[in-house]
Each structure stands twice: as structure tokens, then as C-alpha cells.
């Protein structure tokens, strides 16, 4: 992977042990020091305007278990690679960018699938909240362990949940994985917590843009109270060169970009179900 060149890459010898964790089943007076978990980062974009509200620092984490056919960051899929960063390195970056966040902006973790690193995200998001920085997670919603739950409930201001497809067959065709309902369970969990959520939906001609599918999407979520916004992401081929660079074949070679009319008609359908529909 590209070496980390916006801050010093952490080597084992340089890790600072500054987190104190109470270990269960041990004498209360004894606390042992452990190294804080490291985040495996693919890259950081300091001026994100399409990944959550306002201007955002976007931390792209390395690793994803899906391999979506249209993925525009295929270089973040591999579980290996990336650079290891400490919470404090990332927090320091965010603090330097804080003046640009204005009233709405903040930090978004994207990927890759950020929730694969939920445990390591906990101290990061906790520190961001201490600094008064808005936090967002951009996720496919396939992971919901107790780290994730704590992260979502305590430190995540906004979840952007990617709805891949409304049918199991479609879901498998896009992601290569089974069990679309994991994502819906995730949505249910967020809804129950009463905290904010945006839905994101990639609109691919012939694959996800059938009116029937859009109505199904709307019908499924129309009663949800935490959904602030439904974001349509028109299909584009800006990521194709990355597939080529990886020596992978791009599965959607024959797909085309949406026409303006197609996007508009999708917006019109979804507006029946969601209070705000935007095109990203």
C-alpha cells in the first residue's frame, strides 16, 4: 500500500500506552495498561462534500467483506494493507480541520467497511465527541456486535446506511454475499435508538432503478422516524480505473450512467415516502 505520508506511520516500538482499561475478574486496585487499538486507514480526504452534512474530513478505512460490482473504491476492499494510525493522530488531523467544519461538518468514516473496525473506532469517536466534532459512519450495515452498538448509541451522530437492493437475488448479485436482512436489522436497531440516519441508494440502470424496487424501498422504510434523508447516488464509472489498476475485471463494464430523466423519475417515486430526497 501507499506509505502513510500525512503523518508518521506508527511502528510497534512507537506505540504509546496511554489507555487504562479495567480488566474484569481482577483485583480492583490493579489496572493494566494496553496499547490503544490502531485503525487501518486507506486514505484521508480533508475536503469531503459528499459524505454527510457540510464539509467533512473523510477517513477511508481499509477492508470490506463485500465486493460490490460498482464499488468505486475497490482498493479499499482488501483486508490487508493500508496504514496503521492511532486515534490521536487522526484526532489531531480532525482538530486542525475543525475551523472548516462550520456548523454542519465534521468527520465521516467510510471505506471499506468501517464497522469491521468498530472496536478501534470507539476511542476515536469518543475523542472526536470530546472535541465537539460531529461524527458520521458510512456503512453497509452488516455488522452489529456490542462494539458497534456502543459506537452507534454513544458516539455516532449520523449513520449513512447503504441499501444495496430490495431483493435477496439482487443483493447477492451486487455484493456477492447473502442475507440482505442483516442491513434491515441494522436499520431497525438504529431506528429503535432514535438517532439520526440517512439512507443511500446507488441507482444503476437496469439493476436497481426499476420503479417496483423503488416503491419497495419506500414502502419498507416509510414509517421510520429517524431517517432524515434519502440520498440517491447516480451510477458513475469514475472508479473503473482503480479496478484496472488492481488487475481486476470490472463487472459492470456494459452499464451506462443514468440519464437526468431517470434520476428525476426515481426522485419523484421516493419523494412519496421520504421527507427529503437528494441526489448526491
Amino acid at each position, binding site marked *: 500500500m501507499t506509505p502513510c*505520508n*500525512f503523518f508518521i506511520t506508527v511502528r510497534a516500538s512507537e506505540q504509546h500506552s496511554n489507555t487504562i482499561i479495567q480488566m474484569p475478574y481482577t483485583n480492583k486496585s490493579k489496572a493494566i495498561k494496553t496499547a490503544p487499538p490502531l485503525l487501518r486507514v486507506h486514505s*484521508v480526504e*480533508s*475536503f*469531503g462534500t459528499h459524505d454527510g452534512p457540510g464539509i467533512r474530513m473523510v477517513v477511508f478505512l481499509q477492508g470490506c467483506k463485500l465486493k460490490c460490482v460498482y464499488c468505486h473504491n475497490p482498493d479499499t476492499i482488501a483486508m490487508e494493507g493500508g496504514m496503521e494510525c492511532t486515534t490521536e493522530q487522526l484526532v489531531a488531523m480532525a482538530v486542525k480541520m475543525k*475551523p*472548516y467544519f*462550520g456548523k454542519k461538518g465534521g468527520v465521516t468514516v467510510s471505506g471499506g467497511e468501517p464497522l469491521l473496525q468498530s472496536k478501534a473506532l470507539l476511542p476515536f469517536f469518543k475523542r472526536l465527541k470530546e472535541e465537539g466534532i460531529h461524527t458520521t459512519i458510512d456503512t453497509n450495515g452488516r455488522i452489529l456486535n456490542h462494539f458497534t452498538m456502543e459506537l452507534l448509541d454513544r458516539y455516532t451522530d449520523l449513520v449513512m446506511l447503504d441499501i444495496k437492493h430490495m431483493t435477496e437475488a439482487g443483493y447477492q448479485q451486487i455484493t456477492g454475499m447473502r442475507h440482505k436482512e442483516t442491513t434491515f436489522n441494522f436499520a431497525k436497531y438504529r431506528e429503535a435508538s432514535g438517532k439520526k440516519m440517512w439512507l443511500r441508494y446507488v441507482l444503476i440502470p437496469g439493476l436497481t432503478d426499476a420503479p417496483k424496487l423503488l416503491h419497495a424501498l419506500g414502502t419498507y422504510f416509510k414509517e421510520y422516524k429517524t431517517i432524515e434523508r434519502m440520498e440517491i447516488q447516480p451510477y458513475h464509472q469514475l472508479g473503473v480505473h482503480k479496478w484496472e489498476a488492481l488487475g481486476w475485471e470490472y463487472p459492470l463494464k456494459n452499464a451506462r450512467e443514468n440519464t437526468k430523466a431517470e434520476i428525476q423519475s426515481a426522485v419523484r417515486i421516493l419523494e412519496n415516502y421520504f421527507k427529503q430526497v437528494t441526489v448526491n
Partner: protein
Amino acid sequence: MVKEQIKEGIWTQEVNVRDFVLRNMRPYHGTADFLVGPSAKTQKLWELCKQAMLEERENNGVRAVDTETISTVSAFGAGYIDRENEVIVGLQTDELLKRTMKPFGGFQVVQKALQEQGLAPDDKLTELFSKHIKTHNDGVFSAYTPEIKKYRSLGILTGLPDNYARGRLIGDYRRVALYGISFLIQSKLKDLEQLEGPMTDAVIRLREEVSDQIQALKEMIVLGKTYGLDLKRPARTAQEAVQWTYMAYLAAVKEQDGAAMSLGNVSSFLDIFIENDIEEGKLTEQEAQELIDQFVMKLRVVRHLRMAAYDEIFAGDPTWVTEVIGGMLNDGRTKVTKTSFRFLNTLNNLGPSPEPNLTVLWSENLPENFKAFCAEVAIASSSLQFENDDLMRDLRGSDDYGIACCVSHQDLGKSIQFFGARTNLAKTLLLALNEGRCEITGETVVEGIPPVEEGYLDFDQVMANYQMASKEIARVYNETMNIIHYMHDKYYYEKAQMALIDTNPSIDIAYGAAGLSIVADSLSAIKYAKVLPVRNQEGLTVDFKIEGDFPKYGNDDDRVDTLAVQAVADFNQELQQLPVYKNARPTLSILTITSNVVYGKKTGATPDGRPKGVPFAPGANPMHGRDAHGAIASLNSVAKIRYQDALDGISNTFSIVPKSLGADKSDRIENLVTILDGYFSRNAQHVNINVLNKETLIDAMEHPEEYPQLTIRVSGYAVNFTKLTREQQQEVITRSFHDSL
């Protein structure tokens, strides 16, 4: 101005425009909804201007030239575009876009410029200037040392105002409107009276200068009469205030053709007259906008006679009619008025344009409505630059200032600047690696630089050599500047502009440096990677092999950013040690305008991996494509360069495609406002904003005729894209567009 609602103060007793503005200005916090489109008269006039500019472009960039007359304040008769539609009159000559000879800067330059158009100056003038009249250029070269000439020819010092006018002085053109010329002459006569013996050089010189200023004021009266205007008395109406102010500016651009002939800050001043007339029912909003539109139109058609070589450095025929808009007063009120909006609205009414160089003085305390409007106009026109008012007021004191050229602060009517182009820091670094020899010619420039040891470059050794070389460059640069400004005062004194400035103003002597990002990245490569020079038979570096990665300026990485900060601080420190003509204060700018292309051409391969001949990044920008972590990280790196170390200004050009700035118009406006608030809160001084698609620029290269008004901001000023050379166009396109999606 005799009006009941005008508040009196010190300004009624002495020349003090600031006092008048402070007492009478009406800050405006509302929206842009009151603005109106162009009047029918304005539209007719602008059509004629656009047609004339088209003819100009078709005719090799020059529509007409006068080869017989020396342009002075009172030279030429009246000139009109279309008299019955003009509410503000006056042209530099009797004809629209006609260029004129101003030979006192250097006659050979005039000859050359004419020759390039297949013309020659009048025989009598040629004889006079060849045999009898000495110019600024003659004076400078009679005093230049062989060393200076060598620095100049090797491209270590470039763009020096030694064969053209230095410009950069801002006359307080408001004075003519507020006081009328009779009062100004009286005031100068009083000053002259007080300049008594003993008759030292300085006193004698100042007495002569003030006398010349009075002469220029008298010529301005004559200029006014040509157009039937009585400039002896103060302006009484809004129309007169605009007209009088323009006449004062016109006098300056008839006499001088300095690289930058800036306007100052007239908008909030004129607002007082406009709002009074509107309140008294004598003026409608349409008429108010018409005055500003037509004033701005006149500023857009200012022309100077330039030779092609000049255009290579300062591309696109710029005149730098810089007008600052907005900002705050030290008492906490904003200087934003309705006329601030009206000036920006000219970019809607007349379309985008590089001139006048509209510069928004940004403060976190500016009215939110104004911030949003500025962002909206910047996004639509790419014609605005923004400068940090909070920073400049804090460090320079004054709250009544203009910007000369691109980034140079000037206390209006109280201070001036001696412009000095710039030196090439990247080349200085190469001198350090080549025993003081020019890496291209092998000629020794700086004596006594020890050879660097063979093998990988050693950071400490390179730094020691670099500092030695810098010290010598600073010394020669200083000597050059002293000669230039001594001679400019002697042979091409700006009497019309100086007549509108206090008699003994403070002076900044403005040095400049190019190649900052290259020096920072090169030093970073030497420090954090391994750099092996490749040398030719003469032992000169021709290439560098870099092993390993290194931090690059533009990523908000302190390891390299501190090298950039230090390079500026160190060079400034060298300049502060040296004796200066007229006891001016040395200042430094990190600004290249478009000269980064020429500098690149004249500089060999550098240790950061930049090949020979490749353009530098402009101003204080990170090198193209090396800012890999997005726009904010890039802005943060530039913001670290301390204004205290570069008081003449630090230029940054920010180019972004619309989609990256935000998903829709309102997001884009909001995000741009947020960026500006954020950037300036980090004590950055300047930023140009371009919101353009790369595709638009590429198309404009192929089809210039379809984009006559396509304006882009380059380092410190705006330029008409189609007027750039192909090389410069390509450089602009290569420059990092922030297009993360």
C-alpha cells in the same frame, strides 16, 4: 460636498478621507435582493466595448496605438465610447482601447512594443529619446553593476521594474471627489512651505517632488475641462463623486503604465454619496447601479502598451485595477455597504472579467448575507480574490487600506510601495548544490560555496550552502532594488498619484520570492528520503535520483510545512539586514502571478523530482498534484506561512470543480463561506477562488472565440483565459484541481 446630513469632523479641516468615511458610512447587513440589472444605456455601451475587444483580439491584441504623443495627464482630447449613453465619461485617449507611449520608463521598450506591431515612434521623439532625454531604464543601466546584470540575465532576478514603470502606488483617488483639486493644491502648498532648510538631499528632493505634484494637480484640472468638468471643486452628487474619482484614476493611468495600477477602496466611500442622493430622491437604484457599472466598464478598458516579452511574465495584458470590497473598521462596524454589493453585481451585469481586480476583505464578522453573496459571485464568475482583513488590520494597523496589485497592503494616502518583482529560491537551492554555479550555464553566480560531498545529499550541508547562497542573493537583490527605485524617482516620478498621497508617506520596499514549494519539497526529500544528484561532465546537477518517499508540502504535514515556513522566514531575515533607499521597510511576497511558468523554464531539475523546465507552482501553492489529501489539507499547509515573515503577501490559488464544492448551488455557497472562514481563521492571508470544470478550460483552449469573457484567477489576480499563452493555459489546467468525488 455641502450637505446637511453629512457629519463634519477633522476631515473638513485637513485631507483625511478615512475620517469622512468613518463618520458618514452606512453599513449594510441586508441581502442582495435590492440589486438591479444593467440599464439600457449600460448594455448599449458594453456591446460596443465587447465588439472593440473582439477587434483587439483579432488584431494581435492591439486595436490602435498612438505613435506621436507622449501620454501625460492632460495629453489627448476627450474620448468617448458613445457619448449620449455615457453617464461616466473619460478615456485614456481620444479613442477606445487606443494604447499610448509612456517613454519615461524606457524608450527602447516603447520602440520594441511598437515594432512588434509593425510600427515605430515618431522620428522627432526617437531623436529626442536617443540623444537628449534620459529615461528610468537608461538611469538604471548606467548604475547597474556587472554582478546585477549577470543575476538578471541568468534569471535569478526576474521581472524587475527596470525597463517599465514600477506601479503599485495607489493614489487616494477619493480625495479629488471629496475635496476638489483647489483644496488639494492649497494643502500641498502648505506642505511645501514647511519643507525648510537645512537643504539636505532629502529635503531638496521632497521639495522638488511636491512641486511636481502640484503641477500634476493643475494638469488634472485641465483633464477635467477637456470633458467639461470642474474638478477644482468637490463633487456634489453621486454622479459627480464617481466621475471625479474616475478622473483622478484616469490621470494616473494616462501618466503611468506601472505593472499594477490599483484603485484602492472607493466603493464604501462612493456609497455615502449614492445613499444620500437616493434618500433625497435624486437617484434611483437603477441609476446608482448604472453609475457603478459604467465606472467599472471604464476600468475594464484601461490599456497599456506592452511588449510581448512582458506578456510572458505577466500574462493576459493585466492592469491590476485592484479595488477592495468589504472588511471591517477598527471600531467593529463593517465597511460593507450597498455599493459593495453594487460593485460585485457588475460581474453579473457585465459578465466575468479580470479587471477591475475585485478583492473581498474577509473577516469572520462580515455580515452573513454579504459572505453568501460573495461566495455566490465567486462561484459564478471565478473573478474574485479574498484576503484576510482581520489579519491585516491586526498586523498593519490601518482599517482604511487598499491592495496594490494582488496581495500588497497599502494604507490609503498614507503609504506607498516600491515594487521589486522576485527572485528564484529554487535556483538559489541549485546554486547551493553546484558550488555557486548556474546549473544551466555553469557560470559562477555566488563565490565561495563549497562543493557538496559525493553520494547522497546531506541535509545539514545543503542547508548551510543554501543559507550562504541566500545571503548573497539577498545582497544583490537589495542593491538592485535601491538602484531601481532611486532612478524611478528621478526619471519617472509618479507625480499624479503622489499628489493624492500624503507628502511624506511611509514606504515598503517589496521583495518577492518564487519557487517556495520546490524548496520545501526538495529539502524534505533530502531530509526524509535519499537524494542522489546526477551530474554532467562539468559537474553540474542535471537530475536527482530519489530513493524512498518523503512528506510533501500541501498535505498539512508539519515535517515539511515547517521547512517552507522557515525558508520564508530566513530569506526575509536576510533582507531585513540590508540598507534601503529612502529608509523604506523591507517586505517580502510569496507571489508569482503567472511568472511561475517562466521561472520553471529557466530552472534545471530540482531535488524534489521536478524535471528541468517544468513550471513552478504559483505563489505559495503546493506543487501540482502533490497535495494528495484534499483541499483543506492543502489550504492548511499554505496557511502556516507566517504573514509576519512575508508582509507583502502570500498568494494561494484554489481551483475546484463545481461538483466537488457541493452537490447543489446552496451547498456550494455554504461550503465556500465555510472554507473561507476556516482558512482565514488559521491566519492565512490570501486566496484566489476558481470554480471551473477542467473540460471548460480545455474547450476554451481549442475554441477561444467562444469564451471571450472566461476569467480564471491565477496567483494574485484574474486573467482572461484566452489571452494566456498555450503554455500558461496548459499549466493552469495541470494545476491541481481539487476534484475529489
